[in-house]
């Protein structure tokens, strides 16, 4: 029996006021009497999302275009802006590649290998998600700061930014590849082995293609996170104009009262992030339509 596709009045589902039994209910075609969300609930939800999320972002967009497209372009193409953007994208890309490789390797070890304490290692992966970013920053500072126990003072270098981003983006690839690897059809691998394929060939021809969508998705999310990362970088980068990521550049502009420059860079970062996420969505969509 097809379910009606409409809203309802005085629905029992939402925490909206219910109509007294005798109150006349506006009649309309195909309305659902119970279990829906009334127009009131919908209005509250819309208002909330608009106030908290949409309006602020709209303010950024409008501010970035206060000087017109030319002003926007000037702000984004100024040498310090260009330097920050280039640094951010380069380091993020390198970090994404490293964690794509290491993340896949860690996922493989967690799924196919057996050793004592595996459950603890598995839980440890989520640590960067759970740890506040500023704590990550100070934690890494202990490792690669002036008092480094391994004699590695990397503060205020590109390396420091890279290590901070490696830390915070570690879980993405592991957590997206791991479940797919668990579901992997081992029969296909055994069939390939029985046909004489080496492990390297099996990995390249059988395993990797199966993992690819999850790997791309995890790497994309990691890249999107890296591009906007602020807290973990802030203490280790030294925040010199030479060694400043895009988010630091934005914070810097707003502190020095250059809102238009801050807004323009913000919009640029948002566009990059959305582009990455859009590509991921297309990849995921193509995958489901191919396998479905």
């Amino acid at each position: 029996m097809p379910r009606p596709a409409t809203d309802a009045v005085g629905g029992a589902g939402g925490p909206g006021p219910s109509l007294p039994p005798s109150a006349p209910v506006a009649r309309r075609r195909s309305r659902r009497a119970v279990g829906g969300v009334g127009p009131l609930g919908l209005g509250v939800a819309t208002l909330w999302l608009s106030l908290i999320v949409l309006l602020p972002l709209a303010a950024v967009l409008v501010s970035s275009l206060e000087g017109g497209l030319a002003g926007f372009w000037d702000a984004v193409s100024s040498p310090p802006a260009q330097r920050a953007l280039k640094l951010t994208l380069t380091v993020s890309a390198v970090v994404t590649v490293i964690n794509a490789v290491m993340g896949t390797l860690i996922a493989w070890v967690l799924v196919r290998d057996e050793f004592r304490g595996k459950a603890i290692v598995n839980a440890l992966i989520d640590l960067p998600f759970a740890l506040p970013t500023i704590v990550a920053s100070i934690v890494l500072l202990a490792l690669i700061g002036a008092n480094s126990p391994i004699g590695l003072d990397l503060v205020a270098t590109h390396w420091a930014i890279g290590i901070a981003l490696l830390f915070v983006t570690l879980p993405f690839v592991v957590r997206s590849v791991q479940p797919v690897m668990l579901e992997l059809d081992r029969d296909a691998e055994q069939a390939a082995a029985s046909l004489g394929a080496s492990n390297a060939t099996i990995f390249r021809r059988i395993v990797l293609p199966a993992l690819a969508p999850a790997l791309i998705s995890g790497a994309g999310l990691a890249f999107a996170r890296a591009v906007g990362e602020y807290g973990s970088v802030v203490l280790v980068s030294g925040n010199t104009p030479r060694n400043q990521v895009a988010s630091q550049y934005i914070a810097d502009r707003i502190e020095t009262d250059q809102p238009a420059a801050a807004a323009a860079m913000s919009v640029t970062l948002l566009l990059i992030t959305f582009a990455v996420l859009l590509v991921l969505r297309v990849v995921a969509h193509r995958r489901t339509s191919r396998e479905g």
Partner: protein
Amino acid sequence: MIAAHGIHKHYGDFHALRDVSIEIPDGSLTALLGPSGSGKSTLLRVIAGLEAPDEGVIAIAGNDVTRLAPQGRGIGFVFQHYAAFKHMTVRDNVAFGLKIRKRPKAEIASRVDELLEIVGLAGYQGRYPSQLSGGQRQRMALARALAVEPRVLLLDEPFGALDAKVREDLRKWLRRLHDEVHVTTVLVTHDQEEAMDVADRIAVMNAGRIEQVGAPRDLYDAPATEFVMSFLGPTATLGGRLVRPHDLVLSRGPAEDAVPVTVERVVHLGFEVRVELRDGDDAQLSAQTTRAEAAALDVEAGQSLFVRAERPAVAA
């Protein structure tokens, strides 16, 4: 009495109910019978107030309830998939309606125990729905619906999710329960055997319309339409007319109105024997007969026989 008058209901472009009118007498157990998509569940939900009709009037005990929410209609509703409150014990599930009505605690407790006794779940008070079998869950749902002493009990394919054996037991049990409690009951089902077994009145629905309402036997013996005829039991076509296979009489020699046929296959099903035939127009039909009759005729494949209908049939 429940009365529906001129009910129309659309889901988008789909016309689920087309000018449906029906009266359900007090104390009866009426089955709404039809294939899926015939509108039977929609009609039940409209009676319950879970769906609002686009047009038409619903009256319960003479009161127009069309614009009344389900809360105010004095109904009990049982869902196909139980709709058990998973986070509540059996006791709290059954007590729900009474607690909403703010009845005294002692009264609730004794009423719940009494109902669980009736539905055969005494001693299960502290269990959660996840600890019950499907049949037990549905009996709990029935007790829950009966707890508020509804004027009308509405059952939406209540046994549809259960396996055959449990379904049959619950059917008999429901019939007995109805004979004891006498609450006006409407049962939605797509299973004609279930409808014939349980109900004292059947409304056959098809494509959003009610085709015929009546006692099970009347519908079986005097179907108003071809659809009712074929939905309530097996049919065979003889000389362009629909007949019941057990109304076909086989003979060796020609008789009045008899048609010559060839026997294709003889299937022995214990007491009954199914004889698959082919008539002069090369159309297949099967006749249902008894062992004794089949033996008397000495029926075997390849044989030429004559067949006629014992009872007047519905014109096709």
